[in-house]
């Protein structure tokens, strides 16, 4: 005597939502995992501000736009935190595969998009929260921002970048199925940050360093955010920042979906 359950249809939106909720919960419930991504960027900011604050005085143009070196560092600090934190999505994906939770998902009628959305939404939420956190801390220490609009752009870019970097992390997680392998790729984030104009004005760079920084999309986002945060609202700069971040996010999603499909074809 089977008790008839009303025929049910799996719903992609509900699935995505419940998996996103799980991703956020897993961050909230293991704060020790995200603490380093909050602490280290502040450490770098303090170090750089102490080291370079007086150099800015020697550059009148620079000092005019950035009265404190912290003003210059604010977007870099935020993005650094976001980039550090968003590798977590890849690690979690690899953990799910290692642990077998991924199999549990695949054996249910879950849409493959929901798996990815769920994974990346946690990162997006974390990215936004980090942006607010860093902005508040740096402002408390004397950085200045021109208004709420630029800060909103900062938050949006953070979320998008978290999706982007998280997406590439997920690709690694899917390809390797090993959380350690994902974490092993972590230094790439450093390379990405340090070859951009995150910690040093591009006008003062020379040779190949300047060239690399010029083509590093992180530089484009950072410089647009700097203009917005120190000079005030500019639609052009806002579009550059958001579009670049969105481009990275879109690319990551496409690659991650392909990796997911590929794994499903090979394994399933």
């Amino acid at each position, binding site marked *: 005597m089977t008790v008839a359950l009303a025929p049910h249809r799996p719903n992609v939106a509900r699935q995505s939502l419940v998996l996103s909720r799980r991703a956020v919960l897993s961050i909230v419930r293991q704060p020790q995992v995200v603490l380093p991504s909050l602490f280290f960027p502040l450490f770098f900011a303090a170090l750089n501000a102490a080291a370079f604050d007086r150099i800015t005085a020697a550059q009148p143009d620079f000092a005019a736009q950035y009265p404190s070196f912290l003003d210059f560092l604010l977007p870099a600090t935020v993005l650094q935190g976001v980039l550090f934190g968003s590798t977590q999505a890849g690690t979690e994906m690899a953990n799910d595969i290692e642990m077998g939770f*991924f199999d549990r998902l695949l*054996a249910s009628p879950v849409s493959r998009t929901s798996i990815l959305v769920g994974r990346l939404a946690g990162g997006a939420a974390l990215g936004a929260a980090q942006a607010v956190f860093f902005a508040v801390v740096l402002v408390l220490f004397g950085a200045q921002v021109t208004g709420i609009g630029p800060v909103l752009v900062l938050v949006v870019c953070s979320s998008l970048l978290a999706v982007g970097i998280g997406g590439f992390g997920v690709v690694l997680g899917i390809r390797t199925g090993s959380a350690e392998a994902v974490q092993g790729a972590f230094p790439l984030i450093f390379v990405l940050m340090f070859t951009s104009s995150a910690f040093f004005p591009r006008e003062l760079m020379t040779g190949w360093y300047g060239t690399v920084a010029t083509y590093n999309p992180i530089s484009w986002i950072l410089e647009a955010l700097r203009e917005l945060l120190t000079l005030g609202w500019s639609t052009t700069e806002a579009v550059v920042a958001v579009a670049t971040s969105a481009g990275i996010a879109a690319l990551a999603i496409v690659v991650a979906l392909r990796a997911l499909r590929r794994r499903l074809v090979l394994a399933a």
Partner: protein
Amino acid sequence: MTPIIVAEGLERRFGDLVAVDGVDLSIDAGEVFGFLGPNGAGKSTTVRMLTTLLKPTAGHARVAGYDVVRQAGEVRRAIGVALQDAAIDPLMTGSELVHLQAVLHGIPAKVADQRGKELLERVGLTAAADRRVGTYSGGMRRRLDLALSLVHEPEVLFLDEPTTGLDPMSRMALWEEVRFLNRERGTTVLLTTQYLEEADQLAGRIAIIDHGRIVKKGEPRALKAEVGSPTLMVEVDGDPLAAAEVLATFGDERPSEHRALAIGLTGGAQQLTAVVRALDEAGVVVRHMELNAPTLDDVFAEATGRRLEGAADGSEQGAVEAAPA
């Protein structure tokens, strides 16, 4: 009755390794079917193919009327799956996981919460429902795993080694639950196990799998009857050769553990006194002797030339069958 699980020539290779080598199955709705075999025999790989997690490299299979490759989505809606390593997120609570599983199956929120409560109560986890799974014991995890696989009231339930590593109490509780499901709800159950007793107790029909092939299939009772004669196990002091010679006159040799000698006692228990007399006349000193009615282990031994008992004490737990990269 039309079979609810059908496999024809199901095969899975990993490189050169043939993990599953042409498995044919036909399981009727309402059966409890046991897949018995040692570690690495291909049980889990077969289950992974039947549950759409792994693509067969040859052959095909239908579950609940749907092809496991071409209609994987339909299969996933019809089946409940509890896999070997009880993959449960340790950071979530029991009730959160039940809710998640229900949503994945598209069950409306209200129904999901009600069913979740009922299920957790059924498996005795009401008190632990709001605790994180990381704090659960092994038995509790398996019970939660079972509850999760039942959220959408599946027609077919796959249990991959549901009691490996469990204590006897938890094992019995799980058996009871499987029997209940099968009896009251008519759920078809395919379970894999390396425990003879489990297959004997639970399954109406079993298949013995070894090196990726099904070597025997049928009802446990019929299979045991097929073996026929009981097994006589003899341990002797001193030279076993003389004893072996005597025993050979009473029946064919059977695989045995340790240094014991074993034969199928052709004439049955009536022959026992004759055996003892003959051994005595040959000057054999008997240290231990036992006569056992045929067990599934004998069935296994006859089919494979090896014994499963002892080899499958769970000591090799965690030995994973070749997994795809």
